[in-house]
């Protein structure tokens, strides 16, 4: 088992280099660079100054040389500095000679996105599992149909549209929740409890909306898993033993029905750091999605590459983790793994 893990982890290194090379090339294939942003179309800004900027960032060198420079930096885990944000460090904070700390872009954005996505995932699971179980138990009954209908409405509604509607209704008409942002302007003057309340009320809409729209998929997974399991012989056996229905469903059936969820959660790990551009833009949340999107538009290569690298490393780790969890949860897979 340990040998297997080590082998998998070592394999990730060439894979990561390959992924980064492809991303680097694709990014540079897109026309334009940091000097072709909107402010560079100012008649006062000269082409010489743009050329100077290109030289400063090595953008005048061939792409493969630029990739070499990037790889050399990455070997020491140095993600570099952003072109577009006054050369803020891409990943983690740096301290200059006067002791001024400059925080990293990913360092600032990641906790926010992670918190929103983890809360969202927790809420989705908390709702989806019971809903899936009910739908499976009352299969084709009105409860099942109602849940399916609700899920599909949630799935079909465009997130940004629902967001704006709820922002209007809960924020403007009723003033129950803040409309956008992460904190109130006078956040610092609150006591601890007030700060928690303020943060939670700001997070309510950004968390609840993706949860509603993401509910459909997971509910269906749970429902189908449950339906499969409920028709297995061992469930019939359990019932025949005279176990009460509650025990049959929650002890015997549910554990097996949830197995596929492990894969899904494993696969959603890279999504947890990704963040949604649309939600973050609408709710004015300085998270990873907006950071990445702006970096692509500004051709801020170090930031784009930094996020892609961390994202692909996490995807590979997520896959590994999902496989391991699966092996841990399912003896059949475990035996297969050991043999392989």
């Amino acid at each position, binding site marked *: 088992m340990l040998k297997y893990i080590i082998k998998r982890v070592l394999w990730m290194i060439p894979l990561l280099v390959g992924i980064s090379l492809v991303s680097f090339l694709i990014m540079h294939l*897109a*026309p*334009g*660079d940091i000097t*072709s*942003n*909107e*402010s*560079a*179309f*100012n*008649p*006062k*800004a*000269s*082409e*010489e*100054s*743009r*050329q*100077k*900027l290109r030289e*400063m960032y090595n953008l005048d060198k061939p792409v493969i040389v630029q990739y070499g420079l990037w790889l050399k930096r990455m070997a020491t885990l140095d993600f570099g*500095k952003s072109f577009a*944000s*006054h*050369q803020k460090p891409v990943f983690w904070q740096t301290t*200059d000679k006067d002791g*001024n700390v*400059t925080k990293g872009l990913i360092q*600032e954005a990641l906790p926010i996105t992670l918190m929103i996505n983890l809360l969202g995932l927790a809420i989705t699971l908390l709702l989806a599992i019971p809903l899936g179980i009910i739908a499976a138990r009352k299969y084709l009954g009105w409860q099942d149909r109602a849940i399916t209908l609700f899920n599909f409405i949630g799935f079909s509604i*465009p997130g*940004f*549209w629902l967001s*704006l*509607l709820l*922002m*209007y*209704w809960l*924020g*403007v*008409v009723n003033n129950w929740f*803040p*409309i*956008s*942002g*992460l*904190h109130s*302007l*006078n956040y610092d003057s609150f006591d601890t409890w007030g700060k928690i309340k303020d943060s939670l009320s700001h997070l309510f809409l950004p968390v609840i909306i993706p949860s509603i729209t993401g509910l459909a998929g997971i509910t269906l997974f749970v429902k189908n898993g449950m339906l499969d399991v409920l028709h297995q012989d061992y469930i019939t056996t359990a019932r025949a033993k005279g176990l009460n229905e509650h025990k049959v469903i929650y002890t015997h059936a549910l554990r097996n029905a949830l197995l596929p969820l492990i894969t899904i959660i494993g696969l959603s790990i890279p999504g947890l750091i990704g963040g949604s551009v649309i939600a*973050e*833009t*609408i*709710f*004015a*949340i*300085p998270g990873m999605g*907006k950071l990445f999107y702006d970096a692509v*538009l*500004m051709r801020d290569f170090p930031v784009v590459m930094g996020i892609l690298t961390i994202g692909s490393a996490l995807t590979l780790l997520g896959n590994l983790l999902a496989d391991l969890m699966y092996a841990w949860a399912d003896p059949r897979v475990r035996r297969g793994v050991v043999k392989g």
Partner: protein
Amino acid sequence: MTNAFSSFTQSASIVLVTLIISACGSSHNPSTSGPDLSKPYPSEAGGILISAMTAEPSGLISMIAGESASSAISSNIFNTLLKYDKNLELEGDLVKSWEISSDQKTIIFRLKPGLKWADDKPLTSADVLFTWQAVTDDKTASPYASDFQLVKKAETPDPLTFTVTYAQAYAPALDSWAGLQILPKHLLQGQDLHTTSFARNPVGSHYYKLDRWTHGENLKLSRNPNSVLGQAKIDQLITRIIPDNSAQFLELMADNIDYMGLDPIKYSRIIPARPELQQKLALYKELGNSYTYMGFNLKHKPFNDVRVRRAINYAIDKQEIIDGVYLGLGINIASPYKPGTRWSNPALTPYPYDPAKARQLLKEAGFADTDGDGILERDGKPFTFEIITNQNKEREKSAVLIQRRLKDVGIDVKIRAIEWASFISRFIKTGDFDVVVLGWGLGLDPDQFNIWHSSQQAPGQFNFIGYHNPTVDQLLEQGRLELNPDKRMKIYHEFARVLLDDSPIVYLSAGYGLTAIHKRVKGIDDPAPPAGIGHNSQDWYIPQPLRRNEISQ
């Protein structure tokens, strides 16, 4: 910055907001409680003004940052040597007076005495010299360096005097000194301007100082007690970063921000339709220093033929574009200058909409519909071209209206909208286009050498349409050498006349800048003077009874 996504949500949300208005219009009664917003209040100091911007500044040294978000904030923190008054005439900001030598090559700036930085250190001509050295330094990649590189010699004979000498007289010089924010030498000496933490923690001399910058959320400025120009009325300026326009508007409706730029739909449809918004928001419109145009690639046939360019100019109904795209909130222009200012030639009139004349001119240029398919041909080739524009809703809509009008006279037009960075590097720089729909945002100086002079056609320079007219070249050169405003005015009036006659671009519209400000903010000039409503923002005030009570200091 404009991009595909925001314009998408924007248009979608316009539909949404319109829906909301019809659906819930009645649920929100205009409250008659609370203080009366419309009665006059005496001017008093205090209060907080909250505004919003869509993008976060990258840093607050605007000569490095280069983007408008940066200068919007830093112009409250840093002074310049000169500034424009409400009528767009130059006046002293840090300087008490300035003199121009008789050979017009040297400018002597005399600083006001007793100037101080926010940290109590004296502000002297050494700081000005330092700033000039910083912007022209070879290691600094400032997009705005070129004006200052023309300075041959800069000296500080004493702490209150700063002199610059140019190799030859340079008329836009004064305007350039009105744009350079003076930085403190004692804090920046020996630092790399591109990486210094000063950009996030600046010390200036203007009305406000930066209190706190919460990354991605807001910037808080408070009054600078050392302000060199006296005290502003409002205590605190808070700028929230809200990337989405619709979210900004919802915040404005909910009274969480005081100040926001509007698009024409919000200005002329949404707000007037809602009494409770009309009651609390004052709307302002002012002509900006920018215009939208359709530009021909003059190196491509048949656009090298002036008759064809004029024909297309006659064939386009500009008023239709102003009414349809800008809901009437724009004006038709005939020169590349803001109407009503000194530089705009009042004798010029735009090309009228005259399809008959357009057909006549096209016929003279040798175009005829020989195969009867409704499209003109010359030498057997149909007259067809592609308009490219960046993904900007208003420009795309203008292109659609142009497409229809040109079809009427027998020209087949296709439209393509392209993401900005690709647009610039793939099409504009390479000159690989027929016709563009774009806009120019200009400074206040009339010099447009970089845009129209024939020497400015290299890739990355701004005469990308390839305009070449010896008369215009000569006028532009003259205009740069002439410091007398009246003589200069004549030069640029003549320049605009030749340009209109040559029709290298079709002026489509100069749009109004539209703003909504909560009525609790008093002291705003209405109607806006030529310099815009912001020219006296230091005198804006928020009377005590109208202040928000939920935000304590």
